């Protein structure tokens, strides 16, 4: 099980995976309701709207109201999926999510596209890099960050049958699609082992999983064996998988399209410090806002591209 064996099937947007997933979830369960705040096009939900117009709720540009309506819909047994950009899904409506969804324990699925730097040209107002932290801090909130089209589609379907509030984070650009179409490699709360090795653990989520695979391939060519794990579920965290990995490798790199403060890296570090303190290097934005630009140029500028992961892995192995 090596990074070198992982093959791209095609390149597709993760948000398109959401669009297909929600259509199938709507077909499978008549309680699934979709809400949007004037972003039906961007969220790729047109097929759902066409087939289930009575189960689609257009809220206009009013995200706070959308969150409250979703909470209310659960009371009648509905499974509401709210859809908008990640920034407007979280920071803009934090108190609404906190009181009306999390504290009230409502079965709402908060589905957020255009997360992170790879949103690109719209710039920092839209590129939220703090949302994983915001959401994982809420008691009872499940946080899922799928890595590609197939996984986003499968996660979208899986959360319909998963009781409780969920934050599902995905993005805008076309991105390598490599996980299984049938979703047999995706279980909520169970880390996905992508390669096995003894020299370094790499924990990644979202778009950055593919960047970590590229880094893993390069490290393997250099003779290292890499334990690469996709932490698609940031919360509840698969602590067992993390401890098992770092017990072998004794060092780790965390990779996320998010501020290193409050994101995946912090979660991994907390597990490590509690069970097995090891050196860790963090790939993510360094407590900064983003800016306009092409997605890949931004990943390079902010230190998230493949060469930075390779460097971090070599550095952390020396720190053992």
């Amino acid at each position: 099980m090596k990074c070198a064996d992982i093959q791209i099937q095609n390149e597709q947007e993760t948000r398109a995976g959401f669009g297909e997933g929600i259509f199938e979830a709507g077909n499978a369960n008549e309680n699934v309701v979709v809400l949007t705040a004037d972003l039906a096009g961007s969220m790729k939900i047109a097929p759902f709207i066409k087939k289930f117009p009575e189960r689609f709720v257009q809220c206009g540009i009013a995200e706070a109201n959308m969150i409250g309506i979703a909470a209310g819909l659960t009371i009648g047994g509905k499974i509401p999926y709210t859809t908008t950009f990640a920034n407007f899904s979280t920071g803009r409506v934090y108190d609404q999510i906190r009181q009306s969804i999390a504290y009230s324990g409502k079965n709402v699925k908060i589905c957020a596209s255009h997360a992170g730097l790879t949103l690109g040209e719209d710039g920092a107002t839209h590129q939220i890099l703090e949302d994983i932290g915001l959401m994982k801090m809420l008691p009872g909130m499940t946080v899922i960050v799928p890595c590609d089209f197939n996984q986003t589609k499968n996660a979208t379907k899986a959360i319909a049958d998963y009781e409780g509030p969920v934050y599902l984070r995905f993005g805008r650009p076309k991105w390598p699609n490599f996980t299984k179409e049938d979703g047999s490699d995706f279980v909520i709360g169970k880390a996905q082992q992508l390669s096995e090795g003894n020299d370094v653990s790499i924990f990644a989520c979202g778009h950055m999983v593919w960047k970590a695979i590229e880094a893993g391939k390069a490290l393997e060519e250099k003779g290292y064996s890499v334990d690469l794990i996709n932490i698609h579920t940031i919360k509840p965290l698969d602590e067992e998988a993390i401890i098992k990995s770092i017990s072998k490798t004794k060092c780790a790199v965390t990779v996320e399209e998010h501020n290193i403060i409050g994101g995946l890296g912090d979660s991994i570090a907390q597990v490590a410090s509690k069970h097995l303190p090891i050196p860790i290097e963090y790939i993510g934005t360094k407590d900064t806002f983003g800016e306009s630009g092409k997605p890949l140029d931004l990943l390079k500028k902010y230190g998230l591209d493949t060469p930075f992961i390779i460097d971090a892995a070599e550095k952390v192995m020396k720190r053992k």
Partner: protein
Amino acid sequence: MKSTDQLKNIASQVRRDIVRMVHAVQSGHPGGSLGCADFLTALYFNVMEHKPEFLMDGRNEDVFFLSNGHISPVFYSVLSRAGYFDVKELATFRKINSRLQGHPTTHEHLPGVRMASGSLGQGMSVAIGAALAKKLNGDKHLVFSLHGDGELDEGQNWEAIMFAAHHKVDNLISTIDYNGQQIDGTTKDVMGLENLKDKFIAFNWTVMEMNGNDMDDVIAGLAKAKSLTGKGKPVCILMKTIMGKGVDFMEGHHEWHGIAPNDEQLAKALAQLPETLGDY
């Protein structure tokens, strides 16, 4: 169905509960609670079809959402007097390990509460969601909600007001406690509501006015509101109340929004409120 006199008696006991609960922990919000005692009593004892055995999904019954959650004392008293839980539990209000939190919550599984409220401005959205679910479920029952007038400062209300009219949420009756008071002073001084009736009309709601401290008017007003549902528009009741109603030295004073009476004030208040159902 209770007679007007019976409802007045219940409301008197509810008011006693309110001042006693707030006095016992020296915290809580008596002013708005007292002002809304008649409304909530009528709602739970005469107007709503509801099931005190309580199921969260509220199917095939009318449901109520308290958006201005700080008037929890009146909500808890009415729920307990209506049979949702033992009135003895009112003695735990705002104390550690209680289901009767300072602001209502589902977190402690108190029967009768379907949504946390306290952070203001969120209840109308939730009520709309529940009303939409009723429509999807083919459930003809209604959704009631209560909001403070000061609470309308929160912008989310206006998102919800716009939405409810646009989507013809006509199984919703939202009542505004129009007492003209908020924590820092009168609504006129803090943030003027101007012509609230015209605002709701402009948003395409059906708007009614009602004296929330006249039991006959409350009963007639709520009956009329019910008759106006199902006609393509949400219904708003602008309910005039007096903050602190029933306790003369509290009446009309915003200072009693969120402070508790001392021992002497409690005695004075209770002397004005006949014990009709037995204190908890």
